């Protein structure tokens, strides 16, 4: 009986110790491999429109408007293989009429020796879903649904002197979402469905550590 109790006590101790050890090693792993990219930047493109007027009367057409919008995002991930980090990216893209919160799965790969004090390059991609949570002040007949958000990029890492880098990146940003406005009645249906596809060049500045 005594033996059994002693045995169980030892077992519990071992388990507790090993658990503590795992926790510690996990914490250490996270600490050693944590990667963060936080950027602010602009989304540049053309808010395109072909008007019926332009088709019917080619002499009278609208110019295609350039459009610049603000974007922020932060990538938080862990290095999983060499210099390849995998994580999640959360951001906000402010378009004129709509604001999108893309939540994406992201990867970042830094090229070259990580320890070097020279300028390095990196590449990354975020792919996820753009949520429309910031557009809640719409009429009840209006429905808005988020959609695909995808953003590949390449950039430069410029060492600050410490462990961090400044980043300068250029990339592509695709956001899509749908809106539905139902102004009709049962007898007089009147439904407007808009499909928005934003294709933008993204230039971002930020920090990485």
């Amino acid at each position: 009986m005594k033996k059994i109790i002693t045995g169980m006590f030892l077992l519990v101790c071992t388990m507790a110790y090993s658990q503590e050890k795992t926790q510690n090693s996990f914490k250490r792993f996270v600490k050693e491999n944590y990667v963060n990219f936080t950027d602010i930047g602009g989304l540049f493109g053309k808010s395109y429109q072909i008007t019926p007027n332009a088709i019917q009367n080619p002499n009278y057409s609208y110019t295609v408007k350039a459009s610049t919008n603000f974007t922020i995002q932060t990538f938080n991930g862990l290095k999983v293989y060499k210099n390849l980090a995998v994580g999640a990216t959360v951001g906000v893209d402010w378009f004129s009429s709509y604001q999108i919160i893309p939540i994406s799965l992201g990867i970042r790969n830094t090229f070259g020796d990580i320890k070097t004090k020279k300028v390095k390059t990196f590449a990354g991609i975020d792919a996820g879903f753009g949520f429309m949570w910031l557009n809640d002040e719409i009429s009840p007949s209006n429905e808005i649904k988020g959609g695909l958000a995808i953003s590949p990029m390449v950039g430069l890492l410029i060492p600050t002197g410490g462990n961090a880098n400044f980043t300068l990146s250029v990339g592509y940003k695709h956001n899509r979402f749908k809106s539905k406005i139902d102004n009709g009645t049962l007898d007089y249906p009147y439904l407007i469905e808009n499909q928005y596809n934003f294709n933008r060049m993204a230039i971002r500045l930020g920090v990485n550590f």
Partner: protein
Amino acid sequence: MKKVIFRTLQWVALVTAFASCKDNCTQTVTYRGAESVKVTLSELRSGIKTLPAQALENPGKIYVKDNFLFINEVKKGIHIIDNSNPSAPKAVSFIQILGNIDIAVNGNILYADSYTDFVALDITNPNDVKEVSRNKDVFNNGQVDGITWSYNASDQTIYDSKYKLYTTTQEVACEPQNPVYYYGGGIAFDQGLSSGGIKTGLPTANGTGVSGSTARFAIVDNRLYAVTQSDMKLFNLKNPSNPSQEGSINLGFGIETIFPYKNKLFLGTSTGVQIWDNANPQKPTYLSRLDHARACDPVVVENDIAYVTLRSVNNFTRCGAASANQLDVIDVSNPASPILKKTYPMDSPYGLGIDNKKLFICEGTGGLKTFDANDVMNIKQLQHFKEMNAFDVIPLNNTLMLIGKDGLYQYDYSNPNSLKLLSKIAVKTAS
């Protein structure tokens, strides 16, 4: 050095490639518009046939004569229903009449409009209906369900249109700077049939029947009054199988319904109620009018009290931009000067009917409401049926016949506090 230039070029190429990014936004609009329909006079005048019973598709006005119920199929014809047992109505036959909206029956002769023409049909055998006479070119235009048709005499063609569901897709600005107002390329229409009040308790003596509230035909003492948008046409029915047009009286505009009461004619118009003295049936004379805000308004009268519903519509095509949805109770004991007694708020009233102080009001998609109208200053709502889309009722001998977009319902209202559903003829669902 070469490497540096190559790298620089790479970046420049990348930026240039992305800089040509264009947003791409499309807008798909689904709306109900109108498609034009042309009918030539020869088509119109060869069109009357008796067909086997058919399912209801787009029911219009209803009319009751003895044991028969007539349901208009908008611009297509008339369903004849044997209603001797309201719990089990039987479809007998379908009379195909192009452009038919209104019905009235006197004896065994059914009068119907057929676009421009006024036809008389012998319905002694409902399975073999015969055209007995036709007054040609009586009506020049008309409006039903918000669609106007008109007759062009120079090419002998009737220009009509019908609803169609359109879907258009076009590229639009992704970031409109100003609010954008959308117009459906077609025509936006008011809802429902021409509004009507229900005409109830009309004597079934003289062999005439009872029409629904949206009626534009009324038979009084061997005379049929047919109101168009602007005129009242009189037909003498002395020889029932060969009615002759006796004249036409200009009434103004926006005329919607006619309701005979005692020796008066009550006209529901889009601007108010007009009362005409019919003491000389050959020549009705104008007595008075009670104006109100523009709205669709049917009128019914019982015991010197006129009940008028006003329905606001959200566009100008039919009845004007009215803002009111209400029931007006008007004292017409002195028809020369009607007095508005009280106004009750409503949701979206269409036709109404009254029988012995039991008031029934169709609320369109809001269903049917029943009221106790014993005290006109305190009309109490009794029941509200929400499941149907109702626009017209006939309460007659404790059977309430209700026509809606989804079919014909019949209720037993012998206990006004608790209506009992007797039967339903459903509209054929689009397959």
